[in-house]
């Protein structure tokens, strides 16, 4: 798959049902929205109707959670068929999923489980990505997940795995800055080494979200505003990457839309500061 996704540097939000009315009845100042693909991979009814209406107003990115590209079983063809049907209808800005697995032997965990960073896993992930991209007829984006454990026998870092995956498959990337922060904290690696290690020219989208402090580890909960440490890492990321489509994800304790738009303005402000710095202007 040699074609790449278009460069797009706007600011968006994860669209959740709590805000459907706002998006359908008012003009919301976002450059794109992202939806969870699986919520719309249904036969018909109101969800698809709403998505079609939203699509008339905004570019839409389809973000999946169930492709399971790390699965040793390969991919679910029914899943791919439904995703292609949705993508063909919606003509999304991006189609994305996660570097994770959830399905094995007819079981589906419905969680983003970690992939061991081994050569065997890299081969399997790349084969699965190639199948998905061939089926969809377009390059996908894959996101670095938060993780809470690592495996014996790993032969490369997460960013080395991602770089090899992108090189071999031609896929693009979502850089989830919060996930980098969470995983770096949980596993004791340098978040800046992660940012330096991934191929900057493949990053098409940035995710920002909140996390929580668990008993021993940071947990990627998407239930709170983006914290200052993650904003600082985001500023560093865009200084390395340049303008990249950026969005905020919120999946629990969802606040009024105005609160999320205010958070998004902070991303816009940091983007503007970075642009000025690139032009050599004083902040």
């Amino acid at each position, binding site marked *: 798959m040699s074609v790449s996704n278009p460069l797009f540097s706007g600011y968006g939000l994860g669209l959740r049902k709590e805000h459907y009315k706002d998006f359908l009845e008012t003009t919301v100042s976002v450059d794109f929205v992202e939806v969870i693909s699986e919520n719309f991979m249904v036969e018909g009814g109101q969800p698809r109707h709403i998505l079609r209406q939203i699509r008339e107003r905004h570019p839409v990115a389809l973000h999946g959670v169930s492709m399971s590209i790390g699965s040793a079983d390969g991919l679910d063809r029914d899943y791919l068929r439904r995703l292609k049907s949705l993508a063909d209808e919606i003509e999304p800005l991006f189609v994305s999923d996660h570097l994770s697995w959830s399905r094995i032997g007819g079981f589906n965990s419905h969680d983003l489980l970690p992939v061991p960073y081994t050569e065997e896993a890299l081969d399997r992930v790349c084969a699965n990505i190639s199948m998905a991209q061939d089926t969809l007829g377009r390059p996908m984006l894959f996101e670095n997940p938060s993780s*809470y454990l690592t495996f014996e026998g790993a032969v490369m870092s997460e960013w080395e795995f991602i770089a090899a995956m992108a090189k071999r498959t031609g896929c693009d990337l979502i850089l989830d800055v919060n996930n980098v922060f969470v995983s770096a904290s949980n596993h004791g690696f340098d978040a800046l080494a992660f940012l330096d290690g991934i191929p900057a020219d493949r990053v098409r989208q940035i995710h920002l979200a909140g996390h929580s402090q668990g008993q021993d580890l940071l947990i990627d909960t998407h239930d709170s505003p983006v914290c200052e440490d993650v904003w600082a890492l985001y500023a560093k990321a865009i200084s390395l990457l340049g303008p990249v489509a950026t969005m905020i994800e919120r999946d629990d304790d969802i606040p009024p839309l105005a609160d999320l738009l205010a958070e998004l303005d902070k991303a816009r402000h940091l983007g503007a500061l970075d642009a000025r710095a690139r032009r050599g202007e004083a902040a």
Partner: protein
Amino acid sequence: MTLAQMQHNFRAWLVTASDTAAGQLGTVANAGLAVYQNNYRGQLVGCLEEAFTHVRRWIGEDTFRNAAITHVDSRPPHSWTLDAYASGFGETLVELFPRNPDLHELAWIEWSLSQSFVAADAEPLSPQALALVDWDTARLRLTPSLMCHVATTNAERIWSALWEKTEVPEGQMLPQPGGLIVWRRGFTSRLKQVEALELEVLLELQGDGRFAALCDRLVERLGEAEGIARAGSLLADWLGAELIVGID
């Protein structure tokens, strides 16, 4: 350990939470395993809570939670969509509460309404389309969102009271069994309790579609005059309710 072995072991750990399974994962540190275990179980219980809000109110928070835990322990998820996980919960309720048909039917109603909500779209039949129909050979196409079930209790009244947040009646057996039908009209899922005969002919129509067979069945049950009259009134009702989406 191969990738497949690791993933099967991880599955065993999620489903059983046993120390043996955890020890076979080949992880560097096990503190994070509890996070995945909590995510797995929390996700599934949350799915059931969201899918069965009325059942949850009807049987109470503690009873529902115990039933949900039983379901999670005995029925691991298999579909790519989390929504499908709620599909077997009715069977778990039947196993746990075999003498509560009101609960079984309430669970069927709630699950069917959610399925109907996202069933395939279909345009209702326009009155103009009826003008040229040859009723002797006509086959009726029912909306793909239609779901039918035998009713033995007042579950429809229970569901309606829970929906309207009015006083919920005690569960009772119906004097005579009837039927429950669920379908979508526009973007709104509908529920209706029907007589046993209407349920019977709807089920036959779902399989066969022949209007003449419907008439024969009603004549057989009700006699010539009443049977033909009932066929006409049912057809009018179904057209008005947007249950019929085509005639071949």
